[in-house]
């Protein structure tokens, strides 16, 4: 566990991701408050613990324990094109959040019941919150307006 600005942060390998969340769940972290991702394409030299291999994406899960009033942040390194197992079976609240991450970053979650776009139109090209997605250079896409 690595503290960051006084907050509890855990770095977890993708292979241990599901097991760690399950373990934390039985340890009282029963609410998955937030799940989001960061694209570190333009910030590769970020500070990480020595044993963590930096990858392009990082999925960040914020857990909350209601009983002990604690928060825990789990950070997972995900390479471009790789996927993570879904947390839906442990935390049903991640359904929309994982869809949002898929929509915005293109990170797939294996076993997610309905991995479709949630904010963008379903026929949209690209994933807007990726750092190499440039909103200015892409022609505006209009659904059904192709002549």
């Amino acid at each position, binding site marked *: 566990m690595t503290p960051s600005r006084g907050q509890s942060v855990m770095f977890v390998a993708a292979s241990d991701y599901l097991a760690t969340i399950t373990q934390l769940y039985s340890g009282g972290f*029963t609410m998955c408050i937030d799940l989001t991702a960061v694209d570190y394409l333009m910030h590769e030299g970020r500070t990480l613990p020595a044993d963590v291999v930096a990858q392009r994406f990082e999925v960040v899960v914020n857990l909350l324990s209601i009983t002990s009033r604690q928060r825990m942040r789990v950070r997972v390194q995900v390479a471009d094109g790789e996927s993570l197992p879904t947390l839906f079976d442990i935390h049903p609240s991640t359904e929309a959040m994982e869809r949002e991450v898929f929509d915005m970053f293109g990170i797939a979650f294996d076993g997610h019941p309905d991995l479709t776009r949630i904010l963008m139109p379903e026929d949209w090209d690209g994933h*807007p*919150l990726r750092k190499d997605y440039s909103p200015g250079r892409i022609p505006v896409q209009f659904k059904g307006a192709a002549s």
Partner: protein
Amino acid sequence: MTTVDDRPTAEQVRTQQDIGSLNSPITSAGAATSEGGQELQPRSTMSQKAIMRESGSVLRMSESAAAALADVAADSQEDQTMIINMGPQHPSTHGVLRLMLELQGETVLRCKPIIGYLHTGMEKTGETLSFMQGGTNVTRMDYLSPLNNELVFSLATEKLLGIDGDVPERAQWMRMLLSELNRMSSHLLFMATNGMDLGAVSMMLYGWREREQVLRFFQKVTGLRMNHNFIRPGGVAADLPAGWRDDVLALLDMLPDRLAEYEVLMTGQPIWRERLQGVGVITQSEAIALAATGPILRSTGLAFDLRKDLPYLNYNEVEFDVVVGVHGDAYDRYAIRLQEIRESMRIVRQVLDKMPSGNYRIQNKKVTPPPRGRIDESMEALIHHFKIFTEGFKVPEGEVYVAIESPRGEVGCYIVSDGSAVPYRMHVRAPSFVNVQCLPHMMRGGLVADAVAVISSIDPVLGEVDR
């Protein structure tokens, strides 16, 4: 809490609903839409697990209840159900929320919220605005509680800067004052829209009228009715204007009588109670599994409020009660919000007593621009002022998540900084975005007329759902 004791508990109601759906013949609509994958699909094209999820199982229901839902799809008589759209232009959907409902007669079998119609890429925009400018962006997400959004962004930035312990006391108390007044204005608007959705149209006028009084105070303090950009990293933008105390006291004197009128108009009215009691029930375990926060979580009887449980600002120095419900229904959520207005008034009164004098923003040259008067006197101040407004201030590398209690639940801000003056990534955990997931679970087995009451009781703000 005003509740009726002889009503069944949330768990009992849920069990009754499960039995109800077991007995009703459920059939396939067969009406495939051509819009693509985001929408509600006919049962014939779906897996058992997907149907279970969409019809409202949180996967932690009892074996018998799960089996009952799984059985539903096996029966496939045609033409008994239909899939209809509600929204995105429906007036009761509080913006552009679109629901696809599978109906059998008037009973809602499945519901799928479809969002994104208001998606404007605010998180992407947040990566181009400096920490100085970021407040203008986040304040537009939840436009009914803009000050809470500014507050959470400022708290996260301050934590990254390492100045979260140095913000002057007056600034902290001013933030509490504005945050609580904002909670009152937001809940007053909920009273208005909830009344309007259920046909109590006069309530709509009363709610807007009282909210306007609060917004008038905001206009006096911040210059704007909404989207203030007033709470900023390091403190607030300006000191309270002369006569602010009288204005707040006038508000606090006006509201109790008005709230008593609401009680007569709505709480005590049998039609109102009939429309809300037992409608949109959610159990405590479901609310936790779905990470619902705010009045929805508290309506299930769990007294969890970040102001009390994970205090920020000076909330540990004021006295207030966390209002909880018993049944987890739309009536409890209405009663909780009404009572929370009174609790917020209680906090505001204490803030009036405790408001210290002093600086309203941190005197740290790195974050705070020099006062206007200094610019005329000093060249350095002019340069400094220019640099802070053109380049912004640099924030040390790191990442931080800060959450506060907004009127709708936990609003959180996750900021990653790469050491520049612009956030590398700015994510807002919007309470409405997560709470909207409760809709299928609240609507299962209910009537389509109650769907309006259920949407209203979630109190979603589509600006922050879609961001």
